[in-house]
């Protein structure tokens, strides 16, 4: 009975050596006010000079999001007073941003088991270049505000996603995909915990057929998980309010992660008039493509959209499709592979070093390796089991030197990271499968001889009981028998 409308404003910090309009360095967690140029501090008389790398990052991102790149875009000043905004205005692109009208496709699981995925699209309204502000820390006990301008002037790409999403899960999936794209392009490292990716959600609800409801803006969302929670909470809050006959205020709310709810933000009182004005110190930003590039232009001075387009790396969606095609894995597998930093490379490295089919390898990667990594909160890079070791282990399994149960045991040992090879562990723990068929036959015979009732049941047609016999053989051999072979041998003997 309610349509849920969710739009997003995402600020991604551009991955560059220096800031958007000045030469000071970009670095996370540097000593306060150690990366501040005269321009960043707004010293009078200083002027902005556009950073080419930031423009390229925005063009790359625009192309990856299927946007039209504006060959001419403009810079504007957005005025407001705040301690972390030294100039009293932010330089942004309000009139004509660098890229417009794109789209982002993302996938969601229908159910929780990752077994059925559906693809959705969200329209990208625009991407604009703008300055980041500094950081202010309010010290209420001493009634003071501490200002760190290290971040002031760092380049941002603001990506505006139209309100095409309808719940927290969609918002989270869209942002996750954007994050992967940015990381693949290298235009932003997009790590939310380091403030390189910030998301504000615009949420409203209305009855079908009626006009759109009043929307609220939700800020202070520090992770993708919290994004989903915040959006869903806000939707529910608005519905409750409306159902109780109250109205929604057009306000900004903060997400309180501890309480899991949104609260009104004290800072924003009334509507701000930002008094936008063209930035007079920056001429229009002109970009070229192969057709419009003047012949005698110094190529250091121009950004060529086509040149950038040709050099775009495979985007996540393309990478996933390639993985599915090349290795015959399922689409949902490809999602998980790309979701974990370094996992798809690990997977491909193992494939290279083993005869085991990719469809089997993927199980080891996604179930065994990944669950161990998650359990110990490690990244793929930090894995004590290298692709070489895992490939070695899988080869032993393929060669039928060990059973799959044994292989899991070996994996657990490898995880300890004591430097032992799979072969060493197998020998140590005596996990080798019995290779001598005669020995195995003898054990099978012994088990058959000891299980008269079960044998009769099998011969009578109850095949399931065979598993019990297989289990007994396994026990006799301390798990060192190949169950497939054991089954064959038992069946052969029982049919005699």
């Amino acid at each position, binding site marked *: 009975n309610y349509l849920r409308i969710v739009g997003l404003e995402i600020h991604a910090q551009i991955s560059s050596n220096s800031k958007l309009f000045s030469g000071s360095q970009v670095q996370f967690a540097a000593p306060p006010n150690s990366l501040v140029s005269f321009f960043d501090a707004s010293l009078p008389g200083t*002027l902005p000079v556009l950073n080419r790398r930031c423009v390229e990052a925005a063009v790359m991102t625009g192309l990856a999001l299927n946007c039209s790149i504006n060959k001419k875009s403009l810079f504007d000043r957005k005025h407001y007073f705040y301690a972390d905004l030294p100039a009293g205005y932010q330089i942004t692109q309000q009139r004509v941003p660098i890229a417009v009208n794109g789209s982002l496709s993302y996938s969601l699981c229908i159910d929780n088991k990752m077994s059925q995925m559906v693809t959705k699209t969200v329209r990208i309204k625009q991407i604009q270049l703008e300055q980041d502000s500094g950081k202010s820390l309010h010290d209420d006990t001493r009634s003071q505000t501490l200002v760190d301008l290290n971040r002031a002037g760092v380049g941002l790409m603001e990506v505006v996603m139209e309100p095409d999403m309808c719940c927290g899960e969609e918002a989270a999936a869209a942002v996750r995909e954007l994050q992967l794209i940015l990381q693949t392009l290298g235009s932003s490292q997009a790590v939310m915990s380091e403030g390189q990716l910030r998301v504000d959600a615009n949420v409203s609800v209305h009855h079908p057929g009626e006009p759109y409801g009043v929307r609220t803006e939700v800020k202070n969302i520090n992770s993708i998980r919290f994004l989903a929670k915040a959006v869903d909470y806000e939707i529910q809050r608005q519905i409750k309010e409306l159902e109780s006959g109250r109205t929604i205020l057009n306000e900004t709310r903060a997400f309180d992660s501890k309480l899991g709810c949104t609260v009104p933000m004290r800072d924003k009182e009334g509507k701000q008039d930002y008094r936008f004005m063209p930035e007079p110190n920056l001429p229009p930003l002109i970009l070229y493509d192969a057709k419009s590039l003047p012949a005698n232009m110094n190529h250091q001075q121009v950004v060529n959209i086509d040149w950038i387009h040709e050099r775009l790396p495979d985007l996540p969606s393309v990478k996933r499709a390639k993985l599915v095609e090349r290795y015959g894995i399922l689409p949902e597998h490809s999602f998980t592979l790309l979701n974990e930093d370094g996992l798809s490379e690990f997977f491909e490295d193992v494939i290279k070093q083993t005869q085991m089919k990719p469809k089997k390898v993927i199980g080891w990667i996604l179930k065994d390796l990944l669950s161990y990594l998650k359990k110990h909160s490690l990244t793929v890079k930090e894995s004590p089991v290298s692709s070489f070791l895992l490939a070695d282990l899988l080869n032993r399994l393929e060669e039928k030197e060990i059973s799959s149960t044994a292989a899991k045991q070996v994996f657990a040992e490898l995880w300890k990271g004591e430097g032992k090879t799979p072969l060493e562990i197998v020998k140590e723990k005596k996990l080798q499968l019995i290779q001598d068929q005669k020995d195995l036959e003898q054990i099978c015979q012994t088990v058959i001889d000891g299980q008269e009732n079960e044998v009769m049941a099998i011969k009578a047609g109850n095949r399931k009981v065979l598993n019990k016999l297989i289990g007994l053989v396994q026990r006799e051999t301390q798990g060192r028998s190949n169950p497939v072979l054991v089954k064959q041998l038992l069946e052969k003997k029982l049919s005699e």
Partner: protein
Amino acid sequence: MMGNTMSLVSAALKEGRVAPTELCQRCLSLIKSTKFLNAYITVAEETALKQAEESEKRYRRGQPLGVLDGIPIAVKDNFNTAGIETTCASNMLKGYISPYNATVVQKLLDQGAVLLGKTNLDEFAMGSGSTDGVFGPVRNPWSYSRQYKEKSVPKSHSEDKDSNWVITGGSSGGSAAAVSSFTCFAALGSDTGGSTRNPAAHCGVVGLKPTYGLISRHGLIPLVNSMDVPGILTRCVDDAAVVLGSLAGHDPKDSTTIQDNFKPFELSNLPDVSKLSIGIPKEYHAPGLSSEILALWSKAADLFKNAGAKVIEVSLPHTRYSIVCYHVLCTAEVASNMARFDGLEYGHRSDMNKSTESMYAATRREGFNDVVRGRILSGNYFMLKQNYENYFIKAQKVRRLIANDFVKVFGSGVDILLTPTTLSDAVPYTEFIKEDNRTRSAQDDILTQAANMAGLPAINVPTALSERGLPVGLQFIGRSFQEKQLLTVAKWFEKQVKFPTIQLEEVKRHDHGVFQHQKSASFL
């Protein structure tokens, strides 16, 4: 010596007839004895002498850096100078020591120029009298000239020698006064609506406004970013060409400077204007234009005619809208540019500390004078969402029309425009302050503003003395980036009019009889 042009002094330095340190000492000493002019806010005695010493060493080695080596200069106090206070004549920046040099300052220093000090101005360059700075008004040196004193009617009883002094015009009044009173050989000003040309006219010096984008604004504390240019004040046109040559060119730190390579030029000693077309814009016969200046303007036109130039009347129909247009665009940019003065990072910070907001408010109230605050309020008003279209956008469109007027005229074969620079000669201070800053600016900027709107180069050339014995200048406006042609015409005109040298008691005393009544003809 002191009354010499820069080129002559430069030759004297090279030939060893005078030493840089001696020259520097004389200038410093003259600054002291003309202190009553209030042209300087800061005199950088120690550093100037050091620079002079370095220059001297170079001359002794026979390796001077160029024509500017050892030449004492002054810089308007809205240019950043590392280690030397930069105040913009405002409480907001009193005591502010910038950590960097403006590009133009750096260029002059790199050429060996000796920086004597920072000159006085209207607060943040807002004004046309150089009367509204916190360090007090600048006095026009011509107030103390024999030429003015001879002509001024002594008031009977309450005759205070001082009360009759006239303004310099503004906002670069300190720089104009400094050059006019011989304390330096060239000075930097800034020009946003006429702030270099106006005081140049009132002080009888050459005031050049270069094409927008030719000279770097990096380090010039901005008034209107889209109109500001560094201005050059000298005693003759040749000197202006020399300074221009050392300053012009692309600056990577200023994205509004053009990329094309600038070629410094020397002006011909026999400039020829016979092939030129001189335009006389009829709208510059503005209300309030004194009959004296009108007559001079006409005489000037005749001079060109007689020299064989084509002199025609032209029309710049949108001239009359330039005042209001300027008012909207200027105040809007001012409101924006002044937003950074919040007391946090630098400059004055109020003791009020109840909250950040109250600290901002108190700081800005204490730091800015009424003129600045008035413009900020106006500018913010024009930029409000509901007003933006009707005021700011409209003014931008009108600006385009004003600029197009010039494009049309220059496109029709006119090479240079000849206009008055000011409506009258300099008025006494006591009369000037009867009207407020806004009214004065509106009146005085009318003849100079349009060139800033269109980004065109323009120059004031001192022409003659008025009936009151005060300088009157005429203005030439040229095509974009055609400074060479502009200055050639200006030089020709300068030679024709032979503007008299100021006769100042103080300078006479300092110059040990080397003082010359120089006529322009002897500038060879």
